């Protein structure tokens, strides 16, 4: 049976959480203070922690998260429970080392789905997903950091964290625009090839500039010839 240790200073919510989790066959240790949590932590050896971030006896929940991370590293999943809905608060907790964040009042279905995904592997969490109706605006944008290693007249070669499929259009922004002296937000390229360097394990893509982007092509050539 997987073990969950939770800390919350509200007696009613503590009881509710404990009951919900026990019903789903988890062994639960509930504590009302950070001190109590820490006293029991080593002996109980939880598989997952649920931490109310607003407890304030020896410091707040953030301090507790950091303490756990310092003590046993990143392997133990920590889910924060909070009455704060603000994006800033959520990011503060995630950056301190929490794996997820649930707002109060806690929805038991979501809580159990999230707990299951951490304890039994992501494939086990089973809240359904629904297809977007056709015709709805489903455009999203994904951003990634990359490092340009070579620039030539027609394009750039860069190291990227993931494999990009051939013929994908990408927009690049950042230092390259300043370097080339271009006054715009980004430049558009088409990925021609992506290869994995077996020695360094790096993913290297080559992408070409748009042929009709005369301003860019001129600036690139000026830069290369003069550098």
């Amino acid at each position, binding site marked *: 049976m997987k073990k969950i240790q939770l800390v919350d200073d509200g007696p009613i919510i503590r009881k509710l959480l404990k009951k919900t989790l026990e019903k789903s066959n988890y062994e639960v240790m509930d504590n009302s203070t950070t001190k109590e949590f820490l006293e029991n932590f080593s002996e109980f050896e939880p598989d997952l922690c649920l931490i109310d971030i607003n407890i304030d006896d020896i410091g707040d929940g953030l301090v507790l998260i950091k303490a756990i991370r310092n003590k046993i590293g990143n392997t133990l999943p920590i889910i924060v429970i909070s009455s704060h*809905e*603000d994006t800033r608060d*959520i*990011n503060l*907790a995630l950056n301190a080392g929490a794996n*997820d*964040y649930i*707002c109060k*009042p806690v*929805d038991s*279905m*979501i809580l159990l*789905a999230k707990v299951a*995904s951490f304890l039994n592997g*992501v494939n086990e*969490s089973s*809240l*359904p*997903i*629904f297809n*977007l*109706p056709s015709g709805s605006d*489903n*455009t*999203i*944008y*994904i*951003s*990634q*950091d990359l*490092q*340009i*290693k*070579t*620039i*030539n*007249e*027609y394009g750039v070669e*860069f190291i*990227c964290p*993931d*494999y*990009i*499929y051939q013929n*994908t*259009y*990408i*927009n*690049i922004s*950042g230092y*390259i625009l300043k370097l080339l002296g271009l006054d715009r937000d*980004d430049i558009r390229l088409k*990925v021609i090839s992506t290869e994995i360097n077996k020695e360094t394990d790096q993913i290297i893509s080559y992408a070409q500039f748009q042929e009709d982007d*005369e301003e860019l*092509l001129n600036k690139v*050539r000026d*830069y*290369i*010839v003069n*550098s």
Partner: protein
Amino acid sequence: MSKRIKEVLIIDDDPISSKLVNRFLPTDEFHAVEVSCISEAVEYLLENTPHIIFLDIMLPEMSGLEFQQECKDLIPKESILIMLSSRTEKKVIHKAMQNGAADYIIKPATRNTVMTAVKKHLKGQSVFSKDFLPNEMLDCTMTVQAELKALGETDLLIHSPIKFESEEKIRITGKVLSDIGFSEDQFIVNSKYLNKVSSAKYTGVTFRGASNKVIKNIRGMIIRWNKLFD
């Protein structure tokens, strides 16, 4: 002139030979300048960096081989130097290659020999390029367009041209997501749907730290969609 056109310098005192090489180069890809002696070539190279230089060996003021040696710094490193000569002695060819020629074409040049040499050395690559050392590589950000395919109370399914690693943190934006109330740094890749969808371009994404407002908005959307299907 489009920058895709490659500049070519032909150094040959025989105008017929020059013209011939020039005619072999397709005008939509190459722009050739013909000069008949080394001094004209020097003048041109002081101002220009051609992609390709065709160099004859027997020239009036100075031979092509001497030019290679004495004007080494004038011949741009980026330029591809192709010798063009009726001299067939191995010694001469060897010397020219040793001096930095990329190829050697024996006269009379044919369309085939010229274009084979040109294509071999250009290989679709640019001649002008700059490599950055590992510590000077340019840190940039790229953005690709993708599609949100499905949505639930803990996960999304996206269709994207990037193949992500499981557990990877990714940044996603878009009107449909900001309308729901997401911020871009809430998304973690999962492998939930890998076996259930046919294309590797589909990725399951778990969102973390969704506020109750966000979850309420998602529920509202799903209910509206279901009504659409009824």
